[in-house]
């Protein structure tokens, strides 16, 4: 085993010692597998309507009951996971691809670049994240792409700030000064010395922001401006379920439960990872401690 692989496994083992993190990973893996194998293991199509079976309570055939069009809620929850996980993955990728370079350049060079880039981040932070997303959707119109970009942009500031903080603390370390003293160019120093030592806090941020991204995507869908129907989405299901609280009280319970457990799992995992990496001094700041 190479040193890098050994380190990854070491970290993973330390994370899994914590019971909460272990349970979180087990839940997330189950969710991922179920949604990947949905076509083969689920008896119902999430889009198949059956007007003879509208708003049924949970039972032997439909475990989570049926919705207002007679569709199987369990199937829709499982396919909703696909929407949530894909949006989260896409949004976090956008946020990292923009935010990490901003933080890297701002922290490494300082001066006017730092001032300019961080002012840009301030502008992004001048509105609460969900409102920023709402504005973007108001302009772009309601679509899967708009939701993805909107959620992604709200994550840029945290990546920029976390990376910048890590870079600033690394610049004081001897091995970085040594590369500089030995005549390493600034691009060599930035990409080959500083960046590789910044992956730990970025990784923690990826996990934590995934939970935030899932929450914002669901919030947008709940407000009726997320990914348009009939694509199953947890937020959209809660939005519709709210109209049938008297006729089908359990409708809104299941999508919300799975959504909540997913968010909590990712959050727990991120925080445990932060603590483990902090103990190993791979993180300067503790991003996991601030919500």
């Amino acid at each position, binding site marked *: 085993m190479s040193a890098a692989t050994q380190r990854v496994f070491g970290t993973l083992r330390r994370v899994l010692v914590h019971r909460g993190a272990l349970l979180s990973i087990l839940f997330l893996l189950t969710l991922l597998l179920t949604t990947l194998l949905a076509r083969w293991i689920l008896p119902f199509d999430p889009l198949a309507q059956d007007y003879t079976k509208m708003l049924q309570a949970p039972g032997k055939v439909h475990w989570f009951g049926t919705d207002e069009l007679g569709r199987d809620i369990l199937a829709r929850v499982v396919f909703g996971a696909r929407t949530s996980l894909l949006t989260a993955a896409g949004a976090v990728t956008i946020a990292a691809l923009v935010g990490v370079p901003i933080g890297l350049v701002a922290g490494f060079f300082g001066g006017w670049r730092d001032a300019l880039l961080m002012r840009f981040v301030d502008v992004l932070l001048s509105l609460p994240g969900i409102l920023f997303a709402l504005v973007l959707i108001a302009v772009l119109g309601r679509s899967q792409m708009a939701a993805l970009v909107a959620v992604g942009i709200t994550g840029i500031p945290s990546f920029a700030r976390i990376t910048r903080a890590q870079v600033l603390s690394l610049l004081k370390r001897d091995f970085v000064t040594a590369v500089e003293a030995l005549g390493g160019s600034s691009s060599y120093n930035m990409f080959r010395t500083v960046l590789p030592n910044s992956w730990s806090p970025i990784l923690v941020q990826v996990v934590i922001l995934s939970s935030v991204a899932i929450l914002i995507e669901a919030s947008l869908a709940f407000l009726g401006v997320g990914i348009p129907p009939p694509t199953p989405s947890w937020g959209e299901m809660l939005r519709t379920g709210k109209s049938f609280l008297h006729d089908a009280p359990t409708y809104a319970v299941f999508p919300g439960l799975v959504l909540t457990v997913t968010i909590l799992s990712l959050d727990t995992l991120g925080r445990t990872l932060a603590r483990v990496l902090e103990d190993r001094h791979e993180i300067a700041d503790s991003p996991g401690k601030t*919500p």
Partner: protein
Amino acid sequence: MISYVLRRLLQLLPVLLIASTGIWAMIYAVPGSPVAALVGENATQEQVQAVTERLGLDRPVHEQYWAWLRNAVQGDLGLSIQNREPVRDLIVQRIPATLQLGLAATLVGLLLGVPVAVISALKPGSWLDRTLSGWSALALGVPTFWLGILLILLFAVQLRWLPSASTYVSIWESPWQALRNILLPALTLGVYVSGIFARFLRASLLGELKADYVRTARSKGLPERDVIGRHVMRNALLPFVTIVGLMMATLIGGAVVTEAVFTYPGLGRLLIQAIGTRDYPLIQGCILFILVVFVLLNLMVDVLYAYIDPRIDYG
């Protein structure tokens, strides 16, 4: 002190300017012409004429921006497309409702969050601390709209104690009705806020409890109640004030979602309705208003922090 406030204001100016430019430029990014975005598809020729003149939509772009900014600073945010009423009036009408919800939620957050923080900080690592930390993780992780739905299911559908949809009733006019209507929304939003309060205050208290003056106070025989109440609490509350700024973002964002759950007639619901009907002047007005309030509140928190902590150098 005054120079500190002025400097902070000056730092805010570019942020406000860029953000407001973004809000202004919104209508140019909307497919179709900006005039259509501002007056709607079914506008009369006179209405098109009026907006074109007011914002100079036939003149160069920088003049258009200037006209919009001048009007906005004077409080003229244009007319809503939906009902042709001034956007300013529509916003002003909704402020009391959102303010009442925000204050009630903050109160719930403090009532739930502060005891949780104090109890868990006094016995760090104990089972009580772990249980209560679990509470804050749960409070922060449960989406407000799902919590709201669960509360409606319990208190409105099952027990029939409270209404499932909340209207705004001023607490001064009819306290009982106001309480009935605000209780569930305030609880929904307040639980989230309590999670933030608990997490930060606990960290802040733990930091202070390690300080030398605490050991001194204990060793001179001061009762634990006084050590905590008189010494630790005061110092721990200092960094806590900055959380108010962070919480404002939560409160405003959370209010939008919470108001949607309970169909509560606040600013957030106005914004969502505006987005639903593509009422761009109203969207611009709401966002601009929230932006200014949010930025000013953050400034106030910073100034307050510098004011109450003499150690901060604000010269």
